């Protein structure tokens, strides 16, 4: 426990000094706020674009607040995941490659605390960034588009957060397996993308897949939304995060210990 605190403090300090605590939340906030603002001002933006034929009129049905929030989540599914993967991908592989971890593991330290601190700091970064961005999106949606039912927003947000946790945990696992950073980014992004696409193509086989979490959270936001398989998917996702953690601990141990 003592060592976990030390490792965790070090991870937090590192994320602070490398400005991750600044730019990741900022990007998430920007992504979140952009969607309602863009939607609200879309007619004006189109008008001022200037290359429209004369006399053309565009009528855009004003979307509901819930729809705008669902679109925001769509933004996080692409750029949000990319930022997340890029910001945590070298957390384990970087220390292994540079050789710092040699000095760390020659000391009487526990591999579980080491990995747990990585996981905990990744989860804090993701949670804080998403909470800030999603909160911003919610605030602006209510201000300029229309009210949304709070229960649905919170539920959708929690399920989406679970999906981001999954993506982060997956990235850390790959980081413990592979050395080159581009390889880590490619594998984790590819796997996350495949999972979420698979639940679009084969909904029958992927009811409980973590990849269906983004859809589930969008469903919560639909009027009278009821998401199928939500609890199952959430539980399976948490189980996956735990398995990824255990696998990474095993992997780190295998590389260094007398095991």
């Amino acid at each position, binding site marked *: 426990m003592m*060592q976990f605190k*030390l490792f965790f403090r070090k991870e937090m*300090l590192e994320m602070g000094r490398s400005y991750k605590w600044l730019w990741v939340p900022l990007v998430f906030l920007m992504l979140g706020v952009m969607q309602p603002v863009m939607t609200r001002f879309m007619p004006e933006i189109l008008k001022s674009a200037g290359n429209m034929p004369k006399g053309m009129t565009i009528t855009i049905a004003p979307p509901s607040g819930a729809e705008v929030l669902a679109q925001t989540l769509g933004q996080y599914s692409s750029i949000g995941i990319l930022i997340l993967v890029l910001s945590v991908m070298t957390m384990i592989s970087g220390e292994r490659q540079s*050789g710092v971890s*040699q*000095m*760390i593991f*020659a000391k*009487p330290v526990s591999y579980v605390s080491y990995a747990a601190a990585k996981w905990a700091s990744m989860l804090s970064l993701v949670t804080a960034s998403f909470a800030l961005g999603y909160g911003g999106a919610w605030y602006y949606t209510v201000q300029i588009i229309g009210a949304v039912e709070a229960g649905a927003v919170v539920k959708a947000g929690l399920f989406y957060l679970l999906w981001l946790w999954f993506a982060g945990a997956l990235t850390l696992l790959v980081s413990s397996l592979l050395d080159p950073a581009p390889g880590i980014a490619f594998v984790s992004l590819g796997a996350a993308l495949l999972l979420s696409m698979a639940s679009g193509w084969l909904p029958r086989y992927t009811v409980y897949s973590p990849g269906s979490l983004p859809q589930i959270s969008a469903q919560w936001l639909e009027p009278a939304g009821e998401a199928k398989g939500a609890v199952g998917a959430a539980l399976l996702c948490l189980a996956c995060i735990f398995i990824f953690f255990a696998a990474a601990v095993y992997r780190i141990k295998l590389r260094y210990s*007398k095991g």
Partner: protein
Amino acid sequence: MTRELLQVKGLSKRFKDREVVKGISFSIAEGSCAALIGPNGAGKTTTIRMLAGLLQPSGGSVVLLAEGRPVADPRPYIGYLPQMPVFYPWMTGAEFLLYSGELAGLTRREATRETGKWLDAVGLRDAGKRRIGGYSGGMKQRLGLAQALIHRPRLLILDEPVSALDPAGRKDVLTLLQRIRLETTVLFSTHVLHDAEEICDEILMMREGEIVLQGSLDHLRRTYSEPVIRLEVGGDEVSRAWLAAAGGKDFVVQSEISGGRAKLRVADVERAALELMADAVSRRVTIRTLEAGQSTLEDLFLKAVRS
């Protein structure tokens, strides 16, 4: 102080189909300073990494004894400095020492005290407040020593501690080591024999994954040194020709001749010196130097490595 601290038995390491360390055995006594010498690729780093617990041996055992009893986890008793120490460039030297002290099990207060002490000891008192990213190679090596020693280990294991340093940095580290070895048992690897002679009393010579020679420095000097005559003659034709022929005399066991210099291993150094001089005078050869003495460890090292 002849209690054993580390016992290594039949230690081996195999990477795929290549055996890098081939079942070596040795022991290190408490309070001694041992050098693991060998050419590049002899398996020194692999051995060191197994001793530090960073690499799982393919066979054999490494046992560390504390108060005469074997310990289950040797890591609290070992300080380790890798070949090219890498730190977190965004940390300051003091922060890193504090961090490694606490990781090794010191309380916050102890770690703070030891950090100040070791920063002074390795001459980084002012630099300790700066980020490690801006440190020179020598400073990193000294910081590496401090982090290895902060928890007062019984055995300090260093992998090529001075090989990558310039002469000044090297002298700093060697001076430090000389002080440290008074309090701690030290094992370090090097391919520079001179460094080993300067601070060590035990030698382990490795070649191609095997220990080819081991023993105390004095013992090795006594047992393996051979009578040698070093000769240097003038640059004229006659002298050169005479020197080239000198290698063929009956008392010469082995000869190395290059240009105007020769190193002759002989059976009886007194007789050889007399005969050589008499011969040289009679043929009007100009001798610049003639030294009758013993072969150095360097010669022994080269012989062990090449044979």
